[in-house]
């Protein structure tokens, strides 16, 4: 049992200061912008909740939000089952384990704009391996700069390429921690492969899968660099996700007020959905 000791605060202080400096001050700046209008030259006008009202009645915002949810939903639906399936079929021991782990982790260690650029090059119809193959070998008319569906397929494929390994690593970590006796007992009890998965592997993977889903939700919901470099939000606005839209407002149009208001709403949505996920997935453990 942990002892009650207020000295704990003393240990946490450095973290607190550092994170507060990074989180609270910028957050206050954002709040400050969100209720004012600026014309440059440090001239600010009080606007109250105008920006929030404007944003929440605006079609552009809901479209971006809808695209964001679609993107996150799709990648979760693909990456989580795929990651579990790959983890299940990986060897449990032997020299191939580290080889698999290293190769699989590789995409996660590439700077995000390089990931975007790499996929851009990879999918170019004339000189990219994938683009060339699709257009000239399979005869599919593929050009993501023209076709919104192609653009969507490409950013989803890129994210699956980039991040499925995170789910694999986590699920694999859960799997290797299951003692052999569980599998032996299941064999003796006459359990089918599906039962072994349903009643042994899945419950044992649940804590790590919760982490995986949470991390994948947060990171995909905040994704910016890779799709921006890959498609720039286009063609048209078809792949303009929430964060791309936000940056367009803030830096492109220099609409600081609306951008700040949007940031806050954005953050609130992320927080709310994460909390819902977390509560739903850990609810059984509490009683």
């Amino acid at each position, binding site marked *: 049992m942990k002892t009650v000791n207020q000295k704990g605060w003393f240990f946490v202080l450095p973290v607190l200061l550092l994170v507060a400096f990074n989180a609270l001050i910028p957050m206050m700046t954002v709040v400050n912008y969100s209720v004012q209008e600026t014309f440059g030259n440090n001239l600010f006008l009080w606007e109250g909740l105008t920006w929030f009202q404007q944003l929440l009645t605006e079609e552009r915002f809901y479209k971006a939000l809808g695209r964001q949810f679609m993107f996150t939903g799709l990648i979760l639906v693909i990456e989580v089952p795929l990651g579990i399936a790959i983890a299940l079929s990986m060897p449990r021991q032997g020299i191939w384990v580290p080889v698999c782990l290293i190769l699989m982790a590789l995409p996660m260690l590439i700077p995000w704009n390089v990931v975007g650029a790499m996929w851009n090059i990879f999918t170019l119809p004339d000189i990219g391996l994938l683009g060339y193959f699709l257009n000239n070998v399979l005869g599919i008319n593929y050009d993501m700069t023209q076709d919104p569906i192609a653009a969507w397929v490409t950013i989803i494929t890129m994210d699956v390429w980039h991040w499925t390994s995170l789910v694999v690593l986590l699920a694999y970590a859960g799997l290797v921690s299951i*003692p052999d*006796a*569980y599998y*032996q*007992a299941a*064999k*003796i*009890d*006459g*359990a*089918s492969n599906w*039962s072994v998965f349903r*009643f*042994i592997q899945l*419950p*044992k993977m649940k804590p790590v899968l919760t982490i995986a889903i949470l991390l994948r939700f947060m990171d995909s919901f905040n994704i910016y660099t890779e799709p921006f470099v890959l498609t720039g939000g286009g063609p048209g606005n078809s792949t303009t996700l929430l964060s791309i839209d936000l940056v367009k407002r803030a830096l492109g149009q220099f609409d600081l007020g609306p951008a700040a208001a949007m940031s806050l709403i954005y953050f609130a949505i992320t927080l709310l959905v994460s909390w819902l996920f977390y509560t739903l997935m850990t609810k059984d453990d509490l009683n």
Partner: protein
Amino acid sequence: MAKITLSNLRHSYYPNPSEPSDYALKEIDLDWNDGGAYALLGPSGCGKSTLLNIISGLLVPSEGRILFDDKDVTDLPPDRRNIAQVFQFPVIYDTMTVYDNLAFPLRNRGRDEVTVKTRVTAIAEMLELTDMLSQKAAGLSPDNKQKISMGRGLVREDVNVVMFDEPLTVIDPHLKWKLRSKLKELHQRIKATMIYVTHDQTEALTFADQVVVMQDGEVVQIGTPVELFERPAHTFVGHFIGSPGMNVLPCSLIDGQAYFTDHPVALEGAISGSPKGRTEIGIRPEFVTLAKSGLSATVSKVSDVGRHTVVECDAGGSKIRAIISGAGPEKGAPVFLNFQQNQTRLYVDGWIATHAQEAQS
């Protein structure tokens, strides 16, 4: 329920075993009778878990056959052998209730829910789990979890043998004896063949009717607890069972008479054959007495262990222990030791080489 026969069983974890030391199990021939309570006793790494996994079908032996009621099951997978196994750590299905845990092996075999309910209720009753049937299994204490693992084995009416692989390892000491007597009671009620693997002699001797002692992949003796104690077939059994273990003293043989140092020692009976090799005398501390005359020795250590005293003596460079009642002599005191003749045996290369004296009325 079935009689289990192991014939010429050998097993090696290496693909191409060449030397005897490559084998985890060396030549095992054993019969386990239907309905018996057996213990498989031996130190860690003696091959007892390997043997258990071969019987349950989790391992396929390198050589030899396994028969259940004279039917060859060597190549059958575990679920088709109708066996049950309880592991060292409780294996339960976390997400299921206690009821569903117990019902799992029956449902997997397609039994109807009426049968399932009757069996589960009966087994829960026996194991005192009735109150918990609707609870999630994950939240229970280790001893209850271990009871569930046992229950999953016992719930099947047709089970050939129930095997226990050191099942009390994670149980609190004060609950160990309780669970152990529960097991004994279950055996009497269910009359299934049970095999209990352990390295703890108390567990083995209290549970089993027959104890199989293993060492280095070999069976060294099979017998009732009393036989193992009184007539160890091998010095290892003498050492391993009893507290403290049997005294094993180097000796020489001249014209059929055994000598320890220069002191002649009377053996229990005739020596079988003409012994060649390392000869030793074995006598349990319980049968060594202090006397006015006999083998002279010096007391090196005296420990009071409650109801009796263990006196450790030094004689001719060998350590001899005696268990006596009452207070022992001082440390350093010269004493004379006597060996009770009908409990003094000769061992050649570790194996017993004297015949027991004919009972004389």
